């Protein structure tokens, strides 16, 4: 029933509205994304990523908040009735939601990931996959894994928060979930980890358990943090990192699907 022509005209409309949003409501995301992409690209170009990743948590937090504050404006548009104006112009509910996701979530995440990947590929592709010895003998995680888990976390966090915001038609819910995922859980998880370790009595084994607790508390929604703690647990282990990337990836896809499915079936404008 849906011929290629339908698919094409549907994509054309999504592209149109996404472009419109990009030039209007989504602008703050692009300003922020461009600045961060630039810093990321420069620091990687000059081989300074091992300094940089100390600040990843702050950057991640800032990005999640900017993306959520922009993407969640779709909830205002739905509630106020701007959405129905756009729909009556000839957009489907699916196309409408997809346009928002593309302009406020997909593009920024892809831009960030590319801004890190491209300089790394050009300057030193080896850093993407291999361990390199940093200053004072520290061995930072491979850059490729950092970029991958970082982008995944950005995506999963914003998508998860946005899904609930749209389901309940409230921006505040999207905000609360975003803050929970990017700040509260990462802060609480080491506390719990340390508490358990202290209960076990200080030893090198309990240090490992601290990291494992952090890993398991984060691996669903926060693959980047989970990856860092898995790396600290055992830099040579490959199972946990792959598990993290795989499960969070599937999670991201499920939430994309859930969000679009929900929007399509119950979005009354």
């Amino acid at each position, binding site marked *: 029933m849906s011929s290629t022509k339908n698919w094409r005209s549907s994509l054309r409309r999504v592209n*149109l509205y996404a472009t419109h949003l990009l030039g209007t*409501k989504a602008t703050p995301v692009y300003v922020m994304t461009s600045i961060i992409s630039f810093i990321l690209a420069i620091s990687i170009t000059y081989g300074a990523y091992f300094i940089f990743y100390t600040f990843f948590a702050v950057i991640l937090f800032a990005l999640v908040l900017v993306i959520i504050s922009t993407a969640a404006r779709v909830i205002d548009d739905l509630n106020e009735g*701007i959405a*129905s*104006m756009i729909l009556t112009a*000839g957009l489907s509910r699916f196309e409408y939601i997809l346009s928002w996701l593309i302009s406020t979530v997909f593009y920024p995440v892809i831009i960030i990931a590319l801004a890190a990947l491209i300089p790394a590929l050009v300057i030193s592709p080896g850093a993407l996959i291999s361990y390199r010895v940093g200053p004072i003998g520290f061995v930072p995680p491979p850059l490729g894994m950092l970029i991958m888990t970082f982008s995944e976390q950005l995506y999963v966090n914003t998508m998860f928060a946005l899904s609930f915001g749209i389901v309940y038609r409230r921006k505040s819910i999207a905000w609360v979930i975003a803050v929970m995922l990017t700040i509260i859980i990462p802060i609480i998880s080491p506390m719990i980890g340390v508490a358990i370790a202290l209960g076990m009595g200080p030893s090198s084994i309990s240090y490992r358990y601290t990291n494992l607790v952090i890993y398991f508390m984060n691996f669903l929604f926060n693959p980047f943090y989970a990856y860092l703690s898995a790396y600290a647990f055992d830099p040579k282990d490959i199972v946990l990192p792959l598990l993290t990337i795989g499960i969070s990836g599937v999670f991201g896809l499920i939430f994309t699907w859930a969000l679009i499915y929900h929007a399509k079936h119950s979005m009354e404008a």
Partner: protein
Amino acid sequence: MTDIIMFRDVVKIYNGVIKALDKASFTIPNKAIAGLLGPNGSGKTTSFKLILGLLKPNEGSIRVFGMDPWWDEVDVRRRIGYLPEKPIYPDVRVYEYLRLVRRIRGASREDVIRLTKMFNIYKYLYSRINSLSRGYLQRLGITQALIGNPELLLLDEPTANLDPSSRREILGLIKDLAKELDITIVVATHILPEMKEIANYIVFINKGRIVEYGPIDILTKRYRVEAYYLIYTDQPRRIASELISEDYVRGVEIVEHGLILRIDSTYSELLEELLSTTYQNMIHGYKLVTGELGELYEKLEKLA
């Protein structure tokens, strides 16, 4: 004439409790100029949103152009021009919004420029939409509705909240559209006289129920609606005594400069024929005083 809109036993409930439409069934034929009439809160806007596939009915079925508007939303909406009751535009400039609509609908730039000139909003293209006055907002509303040559035009309270002169202007525009465009137009309103000269079909709705629908001429006959004629004459008594014996004349009243005749509106044509032949020399002229629609409305309101 085939039906362009078909509602069968449509129920729409808001928030699980507010029944906005209650087993509503009606049709609107292709190329009709229809009035969707009903008091405040009767379900007019809800019906429009269902036609556009913006709302999903809880029960019943809806066909617009033969399609289900909820599932075939894009194919249905692309063919409809909609002037919402309270349009809420994104906070952009007029041209930005019109460009977006034009691109989504795949219409030509010339087409839109022609419309902006026709509705006199050309000089406001670079203004922010939020800075427009109500009258111009309404013009923008009609302009965006007509982009892409819709086959069906839905106008929700097009004259609400306008001052008398803007009201007259907008009504004039709608009348012109009805005459010039060979399309179906549905106007939702509770202001009856506005529809009198435009509509040839009505759907009367009250408290979510369809009280009656059909072509106006058939409905006026069915409800034996009365028409009032003011006849200017110097011999009112003579004409009155002659006409009072006719079956269809329900009442006569002598007034200054003539008489008022109350008749079964089905016989309007016959009376007018008579007045312009037999009584031609006795009268100076005549005029239909009360709208048939007005009385029909009252009758239907009592029925509801």
